[in-house]
């Protein structure tokens, strides 16, 4: 049953991508490009495809987005570029993510090397965390001539890209290839290294011209009623061990998943893909306020997941959860072999000397009270998606460069 989990849906061919690109109206001052947080510029790369210049399209994507192949697959495009697409005035938006995937797959197949390290400026930057924000800031800094060391607490780089998003949605080889591009540019990744434990923050600051904290929100939240219950697992744990084992895990007979975001959808769809017959999802939000992207919700529904919207867990007794509707007088009791919590994640910033409130910096921007320390990614204010992580990664690199740019050591 792991085949379905491990297999990504087929992408476009040159013929079918051209059919999709031909639907694009090639707008003046295109709204899609204005709506991409990472400035990936879909209008320009779709126009390149339309005029059969796939290599040019790959350059446009890659030069703006070090994780272009990943964003092509996991970006909630319906909320950004595709929401703005003028084609919606006729029928449905252009499948921008799909076209981007075709182009980045072509880039990989053609073994293109678009990004290069800039001439060394003699300065060193340390980045804590190798999730999307850390990887993008590393790339932008390398292009500007900085040397970059990334400190990763896990054995593999990528953060949630590697340990969270299921294989059918984001194959590991795509993530690995994107990371390899960045290490080929010169990023040096130190694995299994926890800052504040293996290396002190003071040491890092002493060794580098700046430190970027890009630690994300990697620890699962647990509601108190679910603590110390053997039937309960967090989504973070479930997704990580499933991906690690390539889907070869011991399956529950049935499962109840709590949560209504993309992570919850990843969990329920993974369970179904692996062959768990009865999977129920209970979401805090009602459908009209659902957090998960339409694509992920549709995927879960297609697999036959039962989704109960508007309910919150009230009490738990072993494998039995009692749920209560938020607005109407309704309760239900569900017994499940496995109970998986996908109710959000939090940040562990222990011993890093930065101040966070509710997992986020207290003020906008990337600076901290320490002039040598910057933050980016999920702990910086703003959306918590991969595409925003890319944007924040670029912006923190630009900000550091604007501050350090004059201090060339050479």
């Amino acid at each position: 049953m792991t085949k379905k989990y491990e297999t990504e849906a087929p992408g476009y061919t040159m013929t079918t991508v051209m059919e999709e690109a031909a639907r694009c109206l090639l707008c003046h001052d295109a709204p899609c490009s204005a709506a991409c947080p990472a400035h990936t510029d879909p209008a320009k790369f779709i126009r390149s495809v339309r005029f059969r210049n796939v290599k040019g399209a790959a350059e446009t994507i890659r030069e703006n987005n070090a994780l272009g192949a990943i964003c092509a697959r996991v970006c909630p495009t319906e909320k950004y570029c595709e929401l703005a697409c003028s084609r919606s005035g006729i029928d449905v938006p252009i499948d921008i993510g799909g076209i981007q995937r075709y182009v980045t797959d072509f880039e990989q197949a053609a073994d293109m090397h678009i990004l290069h390290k800039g001439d060394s400026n003699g300065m060193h930057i340390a980045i804590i965390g190798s999730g999307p924000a850390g990887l993008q800031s590393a790339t932008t800094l390398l292009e500007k001539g900085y040397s970059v060391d990334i400190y990763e607490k896990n054995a593999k780089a990528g953060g949630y890209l590697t340990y969270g998003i299921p294989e059918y949605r984001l194959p590991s080889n795509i993530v690995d290839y994107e990371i390899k591009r960045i290490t080929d540019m010169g990023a040096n990744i130190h694995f299994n290294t926890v800052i504040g434990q293996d290396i002190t923050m003071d040491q890092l600051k002493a060794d580098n011209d700046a430190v970027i904290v890009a630690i994300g929100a990697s620890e699962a939240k647990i509601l108190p009623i679910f603590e110390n219950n053997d039937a309960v697992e967090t989504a973070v744990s479930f997704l990580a061990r499933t991906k690690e084992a390539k889907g070869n895990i011991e399956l529950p007979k049935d499962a109840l998943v709590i949560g209504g975001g993309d992570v919850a959808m990843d969990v329920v769809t993974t369970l179904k893909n692996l062959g768990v017959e009865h999977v129920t999802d209970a979401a805090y939000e009602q459908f009209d306020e659902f957090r998960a992207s339409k694509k992920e919700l549709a995927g879960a529904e297609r697999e036959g997941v039962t989704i109960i919207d508007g309910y919150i867990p009230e009490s738990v007794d072993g494998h039995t959860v009692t749920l209560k509707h938020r607005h109407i007088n309704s309760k239900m009791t569900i017994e499940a072999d496995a109970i998986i919590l996908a109710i959000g994640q939090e940040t562990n910033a222990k011993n890093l000397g930065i101040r966070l409130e509710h997992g986020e910096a207290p003020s906008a921007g990337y600076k901290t009270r320490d002039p040598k320390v910057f933050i980016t990614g999920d702990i910086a204010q703003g959306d918590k998606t991969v595409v925003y992580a890319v944007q924040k990664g670029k912006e923190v690199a630009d900000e550091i460069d604007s501050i350090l740019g004059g201090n060339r050591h050479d």
Partner: protein
Amino acid sequence: MINKDLSIDFLGVHFENPFCLSSSPVGNCYEMCAKAFDEGWGGIVFKTIGPEDFEIDEVSPRFDELTKEGTPFVAFKNMEQIAEHPLKQNLADLKKLKENYPDKVVIASIMGPTEEDWEELARLVTEAGADMIEMNLSCPQMTSHAMGSDVGSNPPLVEKYCKAVKRGSDLPMMAKMTPNITDMVPAAKAAMAGGADGIATINTVKSIANVDLEKKTALPIVNGKSSISGLSGKAVKPIALRFIQQLRVASGLEQLPISGIGGIETWEDAVEFILMGSTTLQVTTSVMQYGYRIVEDMKNGLMHYMEEQGVEHLSELVGLANKNIVPAEDLDRNYKMYPEIDWDKCIGCGRCFISCYDGAHQAISWDEKTRRPSIDTSKCVGCHLCALVCPVHAIHPGKIVMKEGREGDPSKIDVVSQRLN
């Protein structure tokens, strides 16, 4: 379902409908032609029959296509020559077709390198029972320059061979003309002088459709090399209509009977050829792409058009557009018409703005905030490029004004096209 009489007489032969296969790979043997008849075609022009001793030796591969965006077969290039079956078998097929389909029209296409060959082939196909002869004077990819389009662009040769065919047969005969010529009138006049009863046109346009960027030769690649050969399909329709119009209005060729050929694949294409003066129609490329079944929608669509036009007999439509196509110097140049934007349809893509600036007269301005265009009539020349590029057809003919100092009544000026879009 609508049912109307589509029959029409051409060169004294009665066709149950004007739709014929043209002489090409689509009518290469008895079984193919029989299937086409069964699916509703009115006539077939059997693939060109050559003399017994002319050996057909084809290349592989032999076709190529021109594409645009996601659209295949915008044009089609082929390198096939004439029928590769033995003469005897071709004649037997013609005979059997006429025996089994007595009400359908069987047209024999022939081609030879000498007067004697033309005369003999004409005699043979007449004996086989063909209803009509088409002289192929126009195939651009023959391996012999004594045959094909090199002959068709040489009026004295055309006349000589037409006379030869008329010596060999008293069947009605049409001469198939090549478009690989600046003016088709002299060749058509030569054919008529030689005894032709009508003209079939166009044959394919000499072409190179695509070049392989690695191998540095054209497509299709025939063991490393390629050749110029004939282009057909939708892209050649404008060229065909132009030649047909020029023939129909040429002095001395008035009311010239024409079998129209060139990129026909819909009933609208068919009507265009009829309005331009074609009595029958011949089709290959769209059959190669989609099969004989396309005739169903061409026939049905044509019936609906006749109904809308209040036309009982197809012949009433032949050549109706000829008089409305005039020399450029005779067009009304006294007015201009401004485009008008339908704000309910505009989706704010800005394509009109780009094209007007980069390709016309900078008469459209663009509001970045509202994403809407506006037209400055002081700069607009009324070219209507904006209407053509608008993807939602939100730009229509608008106000008509007389140019300064010109006389005329704008309300009587007619520019509106009814074409569906």
